[in-house]
């Protein structure tokens, strides 16, 4: 079955593992809606009280999980919904982070919200620029064989790494950019000056972004993307300008990735060129694969797993954590190829609805 390189690499992972059970359009009761959303609401409430009960290093860990959850979800717009895998999503993450840092340190823009808007605009422009050549090599219906697109996006990321290393005055060169301060919200009475307060800011931004992306993937636009994933030729024959959908989804995914990058820049106070390259793309790939590309919250679960395991491994086996990570991914692909998210969803449905998905 798997004969082409792209199949070997991705074929098994890319198949949409579960389709959501058909939901009647006739409308759902408030109780049904509440039952669907209860876990998400419960998790948000839990997240709000969590920092009061855990030490600060756990707060930082959870903050990082949230940032990477947004990063993973942003990539999943492309991959899980559009069927467009990319090896260059970290380019947007790192670019967003650098843009944020440069705007503060060199641009003198301290306001968090102004900064965030500028980061979104700049990463969107980057996506608009890179998307044109990238989708020229993607072609039509390439979710079967996206190898050229993968290589092109990989090259973009590495290109940006080189740029960041050479533009020393702006980016600090290969040692990276440091001294990015805590964000200034510009709202009287609210200051963010510790990992404790930053936790809440990240929670707010990530929750808002996740809601926006959720609306996006369930909108008319989102279903067009799903259609392109399944059958791009048919979509064209139905009257959809599929190129425009792919191109804009690349820009949108990039912009959300950029927001995640900006949050990460504030979080560590540091950006290094490697944040735009292959190593960071590997991490987001793991997040999406481990968590399931086929369900919306998959990458959130994946981020918790990857960042959690990374932390544990770096504490107990500091020099071997990539090995642990590699072992984890092999085990997941062999045992639950659809990812942890699908497994949990099946479990959830079994427990609460008395039936398997």
């Amino acid at each position, binding site marked *: 079955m798997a004969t082409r390189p792209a199949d070997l690499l991705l074929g098994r992972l890319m198949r949409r593992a579960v389709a959501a059970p058909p939901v009647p359009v006739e409308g759902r009761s408030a109780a049904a809606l509440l039952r669907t959303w209860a876990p998400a609401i419960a998790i948000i409430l839990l997240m709000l009280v969590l920092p009061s009960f855990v030490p600060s290093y756990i707060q930082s860990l959870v903050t990082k999980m949230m940032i990477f959850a947004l990063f993973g979800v942003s990539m999943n717009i492309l991959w899980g919904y559009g069927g467009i895998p990319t090896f260059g999503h970290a380019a947007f993450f790192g670019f967003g982070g650098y843009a944020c840092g440069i705007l503060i340190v060199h641009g003198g823009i301290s306001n968090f919200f102004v900064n965030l808007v500028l980061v979104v605009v700049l990463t969107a422009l980057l996506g608009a620029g890179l998307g044109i050549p990238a989708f020229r090599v993607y072609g039509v219906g390439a979710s079967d064989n996206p190898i050229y697109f993968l290589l092109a996006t990989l090259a973009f990321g590495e290109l940006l790494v080189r740029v960041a290393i050479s533009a020393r005055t702006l980016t600090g060169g290969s040692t990276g950019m440091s001294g990015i301060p805590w964000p200034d919200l510009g709202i009287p009475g609210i200051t963010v000056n510790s990992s404790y307060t930053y936790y809440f800011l990240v929670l707010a931004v990530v929750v808002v972004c996740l809601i926006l992306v959720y609306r996006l993937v369930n909108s008319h*636009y989102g*279903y067009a993307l799903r259609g392109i994933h399944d059958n791009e030729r048919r979509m*064209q*024959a*139905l009257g959809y300008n599929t190129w425009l959908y792919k191109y804009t989804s690349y820009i949108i995914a990039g912009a959300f990735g950029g927001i995640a990058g900006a949050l990460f820049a504030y979080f560590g106070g540091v950006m290094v060129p490697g944040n735009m390259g292959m190593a960071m793309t590997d991490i987001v790939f793991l997040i999406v694969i481990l968590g399931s590309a086929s369900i919306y919250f998959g990458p959130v679960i994946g981020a918790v797993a990857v960042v959690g395991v990374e932390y544990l491994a770096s504490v107990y086996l500091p020099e071997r954590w990539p090995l642990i990570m590699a072992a984890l991914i092999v085990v997941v692909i062999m045992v639950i190829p659809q990812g942890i998210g699908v497994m949990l969803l099946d479990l959830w449905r079994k427990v609460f609805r008395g039936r398997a998905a």
Partner: protein
Amino acid sequence: MAALLEVEGLSVHFGGLAAVKNVTFTIGEGERLGMIGPNGAGKTTLFNLLTGQLKPSGGKVVFKGQDITHKPVYARTQLGIARSFQITSLFPNESVLTNALIALQGTRAGRYRVWGVFKRDKALYAAAQGLLESIDLWEKRQEMVSSLAYGEQRKLEMGLSLASGPELLMLDEPSCGLTPTESKDITERIRALGKKITVLMIAHDMDLVFGVAERIILLHFGEISCEGTCDEIRANQTVKDIYMGSHKASTAAG
């Protein structure tokens, strides 16, 4: 009868192979034109040229007086051309209903909406009900397309082509792989479309072609080898030679 589609000297080459050579014909409004020919005659290639999936090496395609030779596939659909596929081409991971919803959305306003909830779009839902009822699949709307029987998938295939409300419907082997009963059912459905929709149909199934088409074109080695009404085609010696095989036809081909 005004011409809906005019094809002038259309050709395409794949390297040294001329798959479609200098094809010229017109389809009038409301006409049902059948296209027959042996395997490899270039029927599907010609279809792909007319729908824009392939770029022609030469020639011109005019639809409703507008030159569409270089228009992309989706733009032709917006103008009123729809096609079905010989190899069933649906959204297998979605329900029948979602297939219909996606198909209908293709030519409607709001297909770039990023905020509304697609599955709660009432106007779209009503249209999907109409579409699925017309192909008798409304009862199965919640089923995954991949779990449908093949005959039902073929019906949905035709249904999706009708979703854009086309003026010109291009059917590529609509009865491909169906049982004679199912094939008869498809024949009836195409006839039931009436005069509002012009049909261009490729078929190997002669019962279907003679049951549906008013005029038939025979394509052989990428060229129109003859053209006429059903009766003329039935009586034509070239058709007999090509289909039954004769010394003359095979040497002419070789």
